[in-house]
């Protein structure tokens, strides 16, 4: 019989993972509305394309879909009924996911260490990974982003602050009750 030790700790961890995936998903959607870099990457992505990121087994998940305007919509944890994600990025265990989302291991390292599985259209997966790296520059503190990325781009503090402000603006709008985007 499996015994879950330290349940409070694992609950906090799993809650944190869900929050982080949710933040990434909503930020991707928000930035797709104004950020030129993201929009350019998304141009090459087919309409109705779905990206799902998850932590196995069923610990945390998020899905986003490209709409007809070329922007991303947040679908929640799973794609809508009858739909299947075109790219799934899955981390094998919540402890391994925590290494990534607490910036002890970057995405490439997690993949190199066989902790991450990427399924589906790999060239689209590369595009979405670039989008996520791009957003991490803006939403993470510089020290964390430097650990999360192979190369931290040369951007000014002002540029970072401006974009971050736009993201938070869009996020707040998106979260207003009754508004579905």
């Amino acid at each position, binding site marked *: 019989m499996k015994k879950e030790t330290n349940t409070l700790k694992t609950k906090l961890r799993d809650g944190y993972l869900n929050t982080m995936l949710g933040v990434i998903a909503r930020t991707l959607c928000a930035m797709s509305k104004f950020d030129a870099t993201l929009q350019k990457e998304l141009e*090459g992505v087919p309409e109705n394309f779905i990206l799902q990121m998850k932590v196995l087994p069923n610990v945390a998940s998020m899905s986003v879909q490209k709409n007809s305007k070329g922007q991303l919509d947040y679908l929640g944890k799973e794609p809508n009924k009858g739909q299947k994600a075109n790219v799934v990025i899955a981390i094998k265990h919540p402890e391994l996911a925590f290494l990534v989302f607490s910036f002890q291991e970057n995405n*490439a*390292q997690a*993949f*190199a*260490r*066989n*902790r991450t*599985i*990427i*399924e*589906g259209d*790999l*060239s*689209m*997966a*590369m*595009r979405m*990974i*670039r989008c996520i790296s791009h957003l991490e520059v803006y939403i993470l503190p510089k020290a964390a982003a430097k650990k999360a*990325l*192979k*190369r931290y781009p040369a951007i000014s503090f002002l540029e970072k602050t401006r974009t971050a402000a736009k993201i938070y603006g869009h996020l707040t709008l998106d979260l207003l009750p009754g508004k579905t985007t």
Partner: protein
Amino acid sequence: MSTPCYEFFCPVKIIAGVKSLEHIPHELANFSAFRPLVITDQGVKNAGLIQHIDDAFNSSDINIVDIFDDVPPDSSTLLVTQIADLYRKLDCDSIIAIGGGSVIDTSKGVNILVSEGGDDVTAYSGVDSLKKPLKPFFVIPTTAGTGSEVTSVAVIADTVKNTKVVFTCSFLLPNVAILDPRMTKTLPPKITAATAMDALTHAIEAFTCMGKNPLSDSYATAAISKISQNIINVMDNPSDEMGRLELAQASTMAGIAFSNSMVGLIHALGHSLGATCHIPHGVCMNIFLPHALDYNLRHGESILGEILLPLAGAEAYANTPSNQRPQAVIDYIHKLKDKLHTRCQLPRSLKETGRVEQAQFAKIVELTVDDAALILNPIEVDREDAMAILKRAW
């Protein structure tokens, strides 16, 4: 940077050396397989290599049921279905693939269909779609380069949808790989050189990219030293069977290394150039190898210098101060390319291929940044970086 956590897997039985083909009947019997279908191509047939296999089955109680010898260089999922039909019609119970990358990948696809059933192999594409072992599958490589005999990947073109379908699953690994010097002896000089450079690239990327681990490192360094010690000798003495065998073993070792550590920038560029300009994979590797290593080095890659020992030997390594070793590796590879060019006109630059135009660079760049091999390159590569490397490789 060696990873503090890694996976390593290679369950392929390797039979290498003189008269190793003669081991096949016994090995088939070990799998209770008595009705093998041989899958190969016209090149293998015209080089007279089938005769060696026939000879090996003489004085055995197993007969080859049939030989399909028409796999083209760019195989397709339709062909996979066609060969699977033949296998079923003849009631075969095992597959022997004889050839290079295309034959081996096609045979992997055939094995999926004849084991799992169905007519559409694309239904099993993606990662880990197969859940149980397939039919007994033997591979006899005739080019010393791709390493497909020890990889769990198959790439097969879907000519209807005009895409490349990728299959990744450990059940695709052959049960037995046979490296017999007779089978690579007649490989033409240019293909010998190109495939050896592919194998060298596998080993170097396995050693320098992020997925490296202690086990893949040991295969990679051993492969590098075998290739550098034998390649020129084999080019000058094509019928040197032992030299050929060394290259074949090196190719398999490099295959084991990279399939457990993955490749990086050189393959990302090579896949993209190959797809855009239809240049053979080994030629692409030969062109990009030193330039991509140079790019990684200039941006902070730190272990390239260690390759000098297996590549150039102990004396050259000891005589080179440690801070000059990385550059010495790159210089060595440039010189190796020159030597191969002198011997068989293997193109050293994009221009020398005569098949690339600078106007195609933009497309190659787009494909490169979308290539999954970049994930484990030690250095980030964006569009500008990829374009700069293409210009240097011109």
